């Protein structure tokens, strides 16, 4: 399970993010190495999604530095960050409801149109369901299919780092298992680095190589997925009762 960490792909050092006067991130230090699955767990309102959004530059960090593959991306606009090779499957999936599955996927490739056909084939291999539904409008898909589409759309831009914001949100347990299996496959077979924010701590920790625990805008714990899964503090706060 514990793979030797490669070169650091993404590092955040001392990142503070504010919404107006409210400090949502209070100094985050975090690393994601090439080839890893890293997950960030925490309660509602801990700032998990804010952290992910800050990575994408919306909102931008007020203090601190975010470095991706050796380049400081802290002050870059979102569209430029995506073009550097970071793709995001946003919270609540946010697929385009009136567009067909195929059009959704094509929009994912809007920053990398050259590899469109190749990537489309890859996404259809990962999610055969999307191929069946390719002419259907996004809004008519089931929740699980929409999540597949959101991940597939993110993969279309040929990212090196895939950001997932709560991929299990509102899905049935069976569907969650499917989605997590695909995330594992993408990581293992394609060497995709994944950084994932999750509420479903149990599953996320089992999938991830490493994990961070976030409380009130601060990272309080870090370790391997398996290590945190065994940690009594984590068990008490996030795992027991729920599962």
């Amino acid at each position, binding site marked *: 399970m514990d793979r030797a960490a490669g070169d650091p792909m993404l590092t955040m050092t001392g990142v503070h993010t504010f919404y107006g006067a409210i400090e949502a991130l209070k100094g985050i230090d975090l690393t994601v190495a090439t080839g890893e699955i890293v997950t960030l767990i925490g309660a509602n309102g801990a700032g998990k999604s804010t952290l992910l959004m800050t990575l*994408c530059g*919306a909102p931008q960090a007020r203090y601190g530095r975010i470095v991706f593959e050796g380049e400081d991306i802290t002050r870059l*606009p*979102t*569209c430029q*960050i*995506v*073009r550097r090779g970071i793709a*995001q*499957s*946003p919270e609540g999936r*946010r*697929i*385009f*409801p*009136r*567009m*067909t599955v*195929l*059009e959704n996927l*094509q*929009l*994912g490739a*809007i*920053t990398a*149109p050259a590899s469109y056909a190749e990537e489309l084939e890859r996404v259809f291999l990962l999610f055969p369901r999307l*191929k069946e539904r*390719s*002419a*259907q*409008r996004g809004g*008519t898909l089931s929740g699980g299919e929409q999540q597949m589409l959101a991940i597939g*759309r*993110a993969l279309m*831009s040929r990212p090196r780092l895939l950001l997932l914001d709560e991929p299990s949100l509102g899905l049935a347990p069976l569907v969650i298992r499917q989605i997590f299996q695909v995330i594992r496959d993408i990581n293992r077979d394609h060497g995709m680095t994944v950084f994932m924010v999750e509420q479903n701590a149990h599953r996320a920790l089992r999938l991830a190589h490493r994990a961070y625990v976030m409380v009130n805008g601060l990272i309080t714990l870090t370790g391997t997925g398996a290590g945190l899964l065994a940690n009594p503090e984590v068990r008490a706060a996030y795992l027991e009762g729920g599962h």
Partner: protein
Amino acid sequence: MNPTTAVTATSRVQTLDWSAALKDAGLAGLVALLLTLPLVGLRTIEVQSRLTVEPHLAEVALTALLVFLGRLGLTLAAAGLARPVLAAATLALAAGWVLPFPTEALRVLMVIGALVVALRALWALHRRHDRLSQQERDRRMDHLGARFQDATRLIGPAAVMLAVALPFLPFADRATLDLGILLLTYIMLGWGLNIVVGLAGLLDLGYVAFYAVGAYSYALLAQTFGFSFWLCLPLAGLLASFAGVMLGFPVLRLRGDYFAIVTLGFGEIVRIILLNWANFTGGPNGIAGIPRPSFFGIADFTAAPEPGRLAFHQLFGLQYTPLHRIIFLYYLILALALLVNLFTLRIRRLPLGRAWEALREDDIACTALGINRTTIKLAAFAIAAMFGGIAGSFFATRQGFISPESFSFIESAIILAIVVLGGMGSQIGVVIATLLVIGLPEVFRDLAQYRMLTFGAGMVLIMLWRPRGLLAHREPTLLLHPRQSAFRRQAEAGGRP
């Protein structure tokens, strides 16, 4: 909607709740009473050069009574008493013609009200057996829309051919061609605004500003520097798109309602500048004597050309008629409108058009995909404004006279209504909506003061039956198997909710 209809959906006449029906109708009557009391009931009149208030209580009471009866009729018709209601409504319709009324407006109210109730009763009789839920009805209409969209592959070219042939058809007189030019101008504006509203999903309430910029650009350039129409056309488009970018920058960060309000303000600002900058724009007097377009700079449309110039009829060896210029203008606006249409159809398949549609669907997801919202919003504004400006300079050369009055907010509202009624983003929908919104009031000029009333009623009806516009079905721009028709896809996708 109300308890009576809900109950009787399952079992009819027996369970009709009279007290609820009466209460409902009474409430409608009360609302009518409250509304008409200050508006109709009290009128100020001048008696011996003094203002006094004259009560018209009979009219108020009659209005409230009519509304009460009408509402009761509607409820009963829906509740299974369609036959008696139909009879009563027909009787009322006939009575409305002959009975003496204090004002004609009341007669109209009674006749139209009775007509509506009668239609509703007929409808209820007709579809006793299949009560459709709103969702089913929507799906059915979507189905119809998809089928229609398939048909547009034929209707579109056929309509273009008809439009091309129109000036040579036997009934094409001056009035028909003028109406055609008017319709095509609005179609062009509708198609132009459709880029911003329909594709990019940005609610622009000030589109007429660009129309005005285009019109004044041509008028001023032609009068001050003597530029020809053909030189001014692209220049006007350029200036208007410049205005579009100027509006675009401040509103980039705004969304939804706030965005709409700022564009509304922009439209008014442009009009007020035109009104007040008198020594440049001519102020409220406008600009008169705007040059007419020539035949591509080769020949003029005059009976007796200036020395050294050629006239159109001389060039082609025809008999002179003033209709030549009208026909030329007609073809000019037809070509310009088709240009906008062609542009939109093409751009939807290009990355920029796709990005616009993505922006309309979900702007946050749009950013997550690496789309630069700033540039695509500005592009949408600039391009739509350019087409608006070109339409504006056509308007100026056609009218020969422009003033700020032609560019009031109501114009923006009408163009927006065309886009929304047609179904946002639908090209053929814009054409149909223009025929309804501009064409019908022109055709029904005989209805005089009731013209706008019927127009308003029509708009309300469309929004009731097709809340997302007449043709809201969106045609995908790419397919895995391109030969499939929209109708079949709909049928297949329809299997799932």
